[in-house]
């Protein structure tokens, strides 16, 4: 019997290749439009040619110390992100455990998630000074709510039958939490972590840009102020690239911690 071939669309490499080709295709379309002065000849002053942006990548790596700056931003994101997990998960558990706390605080925390905290950066500058601490604190405040809310949601949505299995086996409250509630909530907690760290990345780069301090956000600000448009877009592209790598690593960790997924 002839061996059955896996359809092309079902292979693991097909989706990323399609994604990459889509980006390349969009780049080619933009290149063609700009070279033909479309939609207007002035557009090239604010949108550089994608080919120039590609060439600028080497320049920002060699001349602008982009790797060191990535290290600074990564440190700030990781510090804020880890602090969000350390504070957010127990806070979510507390809200689950004490109904009065949940009813009192859940709406406020949801409001915190929606609030544009980045805009309050002057207040944080006054409180924590012009340095990494301010950026980390803002990113922490920005990224905390999703972890708290998703931890709470994961615990609340533990299936009743699993709790009944625990009760039928006479589990203590501690055993019930560690053996059933917490493992059941882990997928939701990971969703919270992914959201939270995305917010941390946005907050860190955004505040670095706004206060012209630190890593990649400051680099983009510098390049924009120098009106180096290819460099600015290359900087933004670099942030996207780093974010993609960052979230791929996070997904690997998630898969490693949850083999059942």
């Amino acid at each position: 019997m002839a061996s059955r071939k896996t359809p092309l669309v079902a292979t693991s490499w097909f989706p990323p290749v399609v994604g990459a080709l889509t980006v390349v295709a969009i780049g080619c379309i933009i290149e063609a439009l700009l070279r033909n002065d479309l939609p207007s000849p002035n557009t090239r002053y604010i949108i550089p040619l994608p080919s120039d942006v590609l060439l600028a990548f080497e320049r920002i790596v060699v001349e602008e110390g982009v790797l060191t700056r990535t290290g600074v931003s990564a440190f700030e994101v990781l510090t804020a992100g880890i602090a969000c997990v350390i504070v957010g998960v127990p806070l979510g558990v507390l809200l689950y455990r004490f109904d009065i706390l949940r009813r009192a605080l859940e709406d406020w925390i949801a409001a915190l998630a929606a609030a544009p905290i980045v805009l309050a950066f002057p207040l944080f500058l006054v409180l924590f000074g012009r340095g990494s601490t301010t950026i980390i604190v803002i990113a922490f405040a920005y990224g905390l709510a999703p972890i708290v809310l998703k931890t709470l949601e994961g615990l609340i949505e533990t299936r009743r039958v699993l709790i009944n299995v625990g009760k039928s086996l006479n589990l203590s409250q501690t055993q019930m939490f560690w053996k059933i509630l917490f493992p059941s909530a882990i997928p939701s907690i990971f969703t919270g972590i992914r959201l939270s760290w995305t917010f941390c990345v946005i907050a860190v780069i955004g505040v670095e840009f706004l206060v012209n301090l630190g890593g990649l956000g400051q680099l983009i600000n510098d390049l924009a102020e120098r009106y180096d448009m290819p460099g600015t877009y290359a900087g933004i592209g670099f942030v996207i690239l780093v974010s993609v790598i960052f979230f791929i690593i996070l997904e690997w960790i998630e898969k490693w911690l949850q083999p059942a997924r």
Partner: protein
Amino acid sequence: MTSVETKSRVAGKPETGQPVLIIDDVVKTFGDAEEAVTAVDHVSFNVKQGEFVAVIGPSGCGKSTLFNIIGGLLGEYDGNVLIDDERISGPHPSVGMVFQEESTFPWRSVIDNVAFPLELRGVAKSERYDRARHFIGLVGLDGFEKRFPSQLSGGMKQRVSIARTLVSNPRILLMDEPFAALDEQTRLLLGDKITQIQQELKQTTLLITHNLTEAVQLSDRIVVMTYRPGKVKRIADINLPRPRTSDVVGSDAFGHYVAEIWNDLREEASRGMQESEQVARADRRHG
């Protein structure tokens, strides 16, 4: 089964024929005085050592309430549920529960699911894995030890739940419609598996079900319940030969028992249906 397990199962158990579970005049009412609903009304029967008893009745007859009372998940009730003269008011180590809904832990492999009760008791890993493997084999899931529930079918997941319950060596296996979500063929085949396990372990079993053929296929006795409030309408002896397989479904005697019990059930099921329709009409009238 290993000799060690055989001994541990037999030791401390009453002789076959002795009641191990006594349900005596149990009443359970929900709600306050004005809007009280009696779910279980003066229900009495017992289950003997090694016996397979099914409780059958239409939806709303209090079967699941009874399951929760016997399993200790509903602590407050009138009357007595006794195991060794001890009144059940919370989960009892002698009772192992299998739930209607799929209840495997999705984050644990099959073997870790089955070994879970032993892990709670602090049994050493190698020993609990040995015992878990034995029960995985008993429910016919050899080779699936390292799989996760997401990689199994509905029937296989339910077998994992049954193995997880049996590994605790419960004196009474209490099952609430464990095959309700499965198709008829799988249900019959799992019925075979349950019969085989019950005969091998001499496992005292109480099955809550609304499936008439399942009840007759598996049971030694069937407790027929009335529609709300749930009372015992009749207790029927099923004298089909053992060892039993799903082949029994085609026999005249099986058909006779099904017809006989359906006669009792039909009236209750009709009453339940009429009442549901009245409630639906009233809801429609009140918008």
